[in-house]
């Protein structure tokens, strides 16, 4: 894959409690600027741990992780995270949630109240939340909450978007819609240098193939990188893409790589 390396994982390993479980072992991976990288694998393969390490929420026990060749030492708005169950602030409205990082974190430095408002407004428009600014998370559907989580993330204009199974809690139909929305918001028809880098975790293979430029396949016990597969499907991607023979072939190939493990997981 060509292009500048944005995130670099080298020999990353993570072990919880001295002598305890190894979550990930010896993961070496380059994430290219502007690419949509999807990490796929069965439960327990350490994908979330890897994401947490990239986010800076956890430190690796072995190896190194860097952004733009600078070592990652902790969390920060340049690597925004979207969590599995949204983690929206229930006491804030949609507007308040989106504005939060700008009001209280470094992403809003120098913006001023008017600047923050403008940024939130444009994010709201982009993500399709117009009209719901005053609502609270508990009044929203799952799909709407997901949009808010995404909006909150991109309002801070991160360089990298880290997403941990963001669509897992949604029903199948909403999922399909939001996958396309995600690609639109990410800017799938813009050149790589202008796009943000995305690292996306899922266990749904069809989702991975639909979204990704590359798919990193992991196996579990311990979590290891098994293969990295190119997804040269044309962009912009839509319903037609899903029907392509090439989509099916890629999905089959990935499934073949993890099938045994997935089976074992159901009998242990």
């Amino acid at each position, binding site marked *: 894959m060509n292009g500048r390396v944005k995130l670099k994982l080298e020999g990353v390993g993570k072990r919880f409690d001295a002598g305890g479980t190894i979550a990930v072992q010896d993961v070496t991976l380059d994430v290219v600027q502007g690419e949509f990288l999807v990490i796929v694998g069965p439960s327990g393969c350490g994908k979330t741990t890897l994401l947490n390490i990239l986010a800076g*929420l956890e430190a690796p026990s072995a190896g190194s992780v860097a952004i733009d060749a600078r070592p990652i030492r902790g969390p920060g708005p340049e690597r925004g995270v979207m969590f599995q169950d949204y983690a929206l602030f229930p*006491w804030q409205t949609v507007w308040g949630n989106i504005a939060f*990082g700008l009001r209280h974190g470094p992403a809003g430095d120098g913006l001023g109240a008017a600047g923050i408002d403008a940024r939130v407004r444009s994010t709201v428009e982009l993500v399709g939340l117009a009209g719901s600014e005053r609502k609270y998370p508990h009044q929203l559907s799952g799909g709407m909450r997901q949009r808010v989580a995404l909006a909150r993330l991109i309002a801070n204009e991160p360089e990298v978007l880290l997403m941990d199974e963001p669509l897992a809690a949604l029903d199948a139909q909403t999922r399909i819609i939001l996958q396309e929305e995600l690609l639109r918001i990410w800017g799938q028809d813009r050149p790589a240098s202008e796009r943000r880098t995305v690292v996306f975790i899922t266990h749904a293979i069809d989702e991975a193939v639909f979204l990704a430029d590359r798919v990193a396949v992991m196996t579990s016990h311990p979590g290891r990188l098994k293969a990295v597969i190119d997804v040269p499907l044309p962009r912009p991607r839509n319903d037609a893409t899903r029907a392509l023979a090439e989509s099916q072939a890629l999905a089959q190939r990935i499934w073949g790589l993890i099938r045994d493990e997935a089976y074992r997981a159901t009998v242990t």
Partner: protein
Amino acid sequence: MTTAIRHGRFGTAFAYMRTMAVFVAAWWALALWTGNPALLPTPLEVLKAIVALASDLELFLHAGISLWRMLLSLALATVLAVPLGVAMGLSRVLDGLVDPVVEILRPISGIAWIPLALFILGVGNALPVFIMTYAAFFPILLGTVAGVRGVDRRLIDAARTMGVPHRRIVARVVVPAALPSLLVALRLGVASSWTAVVAAELIGAPSGLGYAIEWYRELLLTPQVMTFIAMIGLLGYLFDRALRALAQRFTPWAADARMS
């Protein structure tokens, strides 16, 4: 009985009145049978007492005094317990240090302090307030600690990934997220405190509902005794309702926070 009346809020009000009517009727029968108004007055006599005490405002005077003490105690207990609870919830070290003292003092109910407090403070306003503050302190403290500890880890992580500094996270994430638990803790504190008010005033105060109950008991004026007892119940109920409404207003997102 049509289904329209049976169900819905109208139905509940109807059921309430029906039950209370049965209760009052049974009471009346029992009162007439015992025939001793000092032992068991009829509902009518109690009603007359209520009207009398209400119209010369004595009922409201004592109620007001007890209520005032309750509010003061609640404020004091909150000011003491909440900051400490937040600090303890955030710092394992502090919690490990302070919790043993809390656990030693907590089983000694506020009421057990009355004799000692009587000696130090004497009969008067300070005694009930002290006892009630003490009684409210522990539920509020423990509820706050639990609330802070129970804050969804993910919310804090989300704020961290936005680069929000630690102090801000405490003020802007931990405290708001713990608010529902805090309000439940306050309700429990109020309940505890209001229970203590009677004992404290009965023994150690020259005014208030507890005092009034005892005063009228010594005069064997049972209808009046019952009036003040009913007032205690009513105020306790209203206070709880008020706090629930407050919780609903300020933390509408919280899943039904019920008292056990």
